[in-house]
């Protein structure tokens, strides 16, 4: 009986839910959604690979490929936070459902001066 006023109020008010597939709420600006890479800016340092807690990123420096298993990604954003060139960003939308398992491979240009880069990699390892 004590709940009756709330029930009457709810009957007179608009519904609290949205008619979802037709009405979609605006995403919040800081939402950690789908991972996006700007492969042109990537220097293949492998920092994202080392920081990723679910180990879903593989970087091949020689071949210049950046690989990600989007199904294993937990959207924590550690790779984005630690990327030295800020080439990793996150959308404010969820990843779309997929019917099949895919591996997401990006091909970029590998860095040219090899000896210098190798030394740089060692340094980050020590840290």
């Amino acid at each position, binding site marked *: *009986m*004590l*709940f009756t*006023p*709330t*029930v009457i109020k*709810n009957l007179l008010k608009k519904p*609290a839910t949205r008619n979802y597939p037709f009405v979609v709420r605006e995403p*919040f*600006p*800081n*939402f*950690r959604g789908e991972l996006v890479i700007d492969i042109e800016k990537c220097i293949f340092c492998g920092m994202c690979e080392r*920081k*990723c*807690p*679910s180990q879903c990123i593989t970087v091949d420096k020689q071949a210049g490929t950046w690989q990600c298993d989007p199904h294993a990604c*937990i*959207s*924590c*954003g*550690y790779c984005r*936070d630690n990327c030295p060139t800020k080439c990793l960003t996150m959308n404010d939308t969820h990843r779309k459902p997929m019917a099949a398992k895919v591996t997401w491979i990006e091909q970029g240009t590998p860095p040219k001066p090899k000896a210098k880069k190798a030394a740089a990699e060692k340094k980050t390892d020590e840290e």
Partner: protein
Amino acid sequence: MATTVIPFGPQHPVLPEPVHLTLKVEDEIVKEAIPALGYVHRGLEKLAEIRDYHQMITVCERVCGICSMIHGTCYSQSIEELMGIEVPARAEMLRVIWSELHRMHSHLLWLGLFADAFGFEALFMQFWKVRERIMDINEATAGSRVIVSVNIIGGVRTDLSPDQLRWILSELEIVEKEVREMQDTIMNDYSVKARTVGVGYMSKDDAYILGAAGPTLRGSGVASDMRMLGYGAYSELDFEPVIETSGDCWARSAVRFREVGQSIDLVRQAISKLPEGDLAAKVKGNPPEGEVYMRVEQPRGECVYYIRGNGTKHLDRLRIRTPTFANIPPLLHMLPGCELADVPVIVLAIDPCISCTER
């Protein structure tokens, strides 16, 4: 009268997560309850051997799907204590804000599920409607609804701007008003009281001896709240443990309901006392050899982390003792003597978080 054995769970309409109880029933009265756990064991503690101590935060956050923030805080605090890191005051206060938001939405979720357990669908939906505002605060400020992932070793990685703080306060104003509207229903309604008052009684001494934790313990009149230890920034805030003395399911729901108000108050205090400063301290090296115990108060009660470092980036041992684990012996003490129809209400009253328990 012959004994009938009735299986309760692992799949049951009132159970959010799988736990099995074998109920020995005589004439609709439960005589004995035997639990069986292990349906959702994931072996997260073993992951400490292959993930480094920074990556383990995300693993610890996934121990529980509801109080992820407080697991992350507890893990970070224990590593910080082991490594002797001084956390900036602003980071500690920000942790309190998100922790209390998590406690609030966990309690609102539970109050809804509890209403559902005794068949009050409308109240269930109403509580979850209020909870949605807090989920929105989490999403807008930290980037995710439940796994806020704001903790890092040494502090937090997300800041709250003055605009966001003002928005949180204005949202909390609405939440408080909406929660107040339901106070009479959950505490004084005739049909709610008929299902909860006197059901699942546990005396103060029994609760203490059986090692109950959190609202189950406080509902029996023991003033035990790990936040009173003053970890993090709780030492600067002014609050008292919420206690009810009747020791039944009504008392446990009343404790949780009043804790929602307490959490709103704590968030307000934390925002008003939020100092300026850094977000995180610099962390260098690996955890040294040594061991640390850390206790924090989760929505469900006391949670204990035991960590042993060995000087490398991997931990030697990570042991998590969650509040639901502590609350299972009290549950088995409460069940004998109750009616079969009251079993869902009593099981729900300890707020079972089985994924936590089995990790």
